[in-house]
């Protein structure tokens, strides 16, 4: 197979999009300027919608025009939060199509946090109506749905940001650009290891006196209340753990390595919850970079053992273990690696009190323990008090105002999620699957 690099992807994507795809004119300038108040709507106020709302309520110059959720208690919850915290009274809707009908003309942006299978139709409809969209990942429960979103964004000329929020996380941006690219702290990264290990959770329940009427559930594609509350595990609605949790992290490998994978083998198990999608998935990717980096990724939903969630870049000179949780983020220098003092002086890395300093080795075949370093004290743009989704929303709203480009537009999100779709396919089939250049782009 011909080597396919990220540069090739950008080239191919540019061609596929008729040269328009990455044109900066499409990534900004929506008739707004810095500081303008934006009219926005929030579609879907479940767990994820609430997380996004928490961030939106802290951002200035937003006018909440509408909130929408098919579950009335959640819709009114959103309304009440908005009134309590910013003294605004958004209209409440059950059907997003009514939001489009009544407000599309005035809306500058919509934030969509509904179950995966609604992402594509909602996003396409809003884009078609001329509204910029921030949509949670996964783009869709199907690859076809994701493609439709990319095409709709291209056709409308509107902005579409996908919620891979690590792309706007100042710590991740610093780690990639400064530590890995400029400081080359890891040396040659021959292996990566990522995981999200989560303890057993019970199915979500609901108060019996707050059930959605059956005809409403049917109208929106749910067979019953139990499925509405636990859609993530069902084929045709969600994508399972590898899609819900894995998509965030698998995206980081391609981003940091500046390469796409060329093949994947994976194994999934459905023995615990007995649902449509696997409880636990383990994948091995080979990336198409000069070092042919091997990446192991696992998502486990039956144990929290093993140190939580992180993405680890393991080089011959050092290892960078990234996590959205700063407490889980680590940087280690190989004992026989080069001196890192110059990197500390340049402010690319920071010193920490090493817990490995006095570690003894038990066997002569064992390597000396690596030395622990960390992030420098100040990281540009990083505020530990900001919710982790806020920078990504700020990036989106900034793009709507023409202040910056999107950090995760539909084209790039599609390339990242194509990897997840194929990994899931490999875990279902048990076959080693190869990626083609065409897998990462959407043809017109």
């Amino acid at each position, binding site marked *: 197979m011909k080597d396919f690099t990220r540069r090739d992807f950008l080239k191919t994507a540019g061609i596929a999009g008729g040269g328009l795809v990455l044109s900066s004119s499409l990534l900004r300038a929506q008739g707004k300027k810095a500081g303008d108040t934006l009219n926005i709507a929030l579609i879907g106020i479940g767990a994820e919608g609430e997380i996004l709302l928490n961030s939106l309520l802290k951002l200035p110059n937003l006018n909440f025009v509408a909130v929408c959720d098919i579950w*009335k*208690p959640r819709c*009114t919850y959103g*309304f*009440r939060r908005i*009134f*309590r915290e910013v*003294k605004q009274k958004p209209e409440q809707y059950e059907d997003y199509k009514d939001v489009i009908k009544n407000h599309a003309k005035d809306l500058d942006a919509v934030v969509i946090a509904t179950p995966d299978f609604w992402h594509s139709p909602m996003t396409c409809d809003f884009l078609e109506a001329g509204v910029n969209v921030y949509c949670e990942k996964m783009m869709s429960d199907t690859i076809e749905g994701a493609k439709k979103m990319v095409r709709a964004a291209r056709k409308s000329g509107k902005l579409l940001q996908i919620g891979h929020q690590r792309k706007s996380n100042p710590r991740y941006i610093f780690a990639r650009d400064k530590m890995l690219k400029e400081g080359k702290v890891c040396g040659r990264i021959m292996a990566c290891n990522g995981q999200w290990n989560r303890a057993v959770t019970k199915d979500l329940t609901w*108060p*019996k*006196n*707050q059930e959605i009427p059956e005809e409403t559930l049917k109208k929106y594609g749910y067979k019953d209340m139990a499925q509405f509350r636990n859609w993530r595990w069902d084929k045709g609605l969600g994508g399972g753990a590898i899609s819900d949790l894995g998509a965030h992290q698998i995206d980081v490998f391609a981003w940091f390595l500046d390469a796409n994978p060329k093949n994947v083998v994976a194994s999934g198990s459905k023995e615990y919850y007995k649902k449509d999608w696997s409880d636990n998935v383990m994948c091995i990717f080979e990336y198409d970079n000069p070092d042919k980096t091997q990446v192991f990724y696992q998502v486990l939903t039956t144990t929290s053992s093993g140190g939580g969630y992180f993405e680890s870049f393991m080089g011959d000179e050092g290892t960078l273990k990234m996590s959205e949780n700063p407490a889980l983020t680590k940087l280690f220098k190989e004992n026989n690696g080069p001196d890192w003092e110059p990197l500390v002086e340049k402010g690319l890395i920071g010193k920490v009190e090493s817990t490995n300093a006095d570690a003894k080795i038990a066997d002569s075949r064992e390597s000396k323990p690596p030395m622990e370093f960390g992030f420098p004290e100040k990281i540009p743009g990083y505020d530990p008090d900001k919710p982790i989704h806020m920078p990504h929303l700020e990036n989106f709203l900034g793009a709507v105002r023409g202040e910056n480009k999107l950090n995760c537009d539909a084209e790039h999100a599609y390339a990242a999620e194509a990897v997840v779709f194929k990994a899931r396919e490999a875990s279902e089939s048990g076959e080693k699957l190869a990626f083609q250049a065409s897998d990462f782009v959407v043809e017109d």
Partner: protein
Amino acid sequence: MKSNITYTMAFWLIRFWLAARAIGTGLTKFQGKAPAQVPNAEKATEMQALIEAGMSKQEALEAVADMPDTVEKVVDTLGFSLYHGLPEKGPMTVETFSASPLMPSFAVQPYAWVLGFALIGLGVTLLLGICTRLTLFLMGLLYISLTWGFIILEPSMGPAAAAGIAYLGVHMVIIVAGLFLADYNKFELLSCKKFGFCKCACEK
């Protein structure tokens, strides 16, 4: 019946203490956790917050209309369906006692069924003053049976069982003291002699 107000008061204290002890312990056998509908405190708080934020009362009422007036919560409650004569967990379950060679296994479950009712029954009887002497005697026998449970578990439970034996021993001392002072009892609903037994003692 002898008359000495000090002794009478001493007996009453013993009588009421033992009654409270038995009734309370018996009631705990009917206590457990169960889902119940309780007023939704969040609704009132939310409404107040909306009004404080500037919403009219009518608007606030509409805004919280979808919030239920009551919510289901697991609460501590009493009920026949929650009855457990012996603990459901820990070292003193029906299973543990049934497995002991020092206990007739066929009797453990019936004992567990009866225990809570017996404690409450004896406690109420003592409180009301019904056959007080006989009640005290039966209560003593009941505490001996409980003591036997601790004795046979002492090898496996260790000091906790020994403490339980001593603790029940204190109950026995109080019961015996009660029997000694029973002659000074007053305000009985039904004395033993009404039924014809312990006539001699009651007529001293």
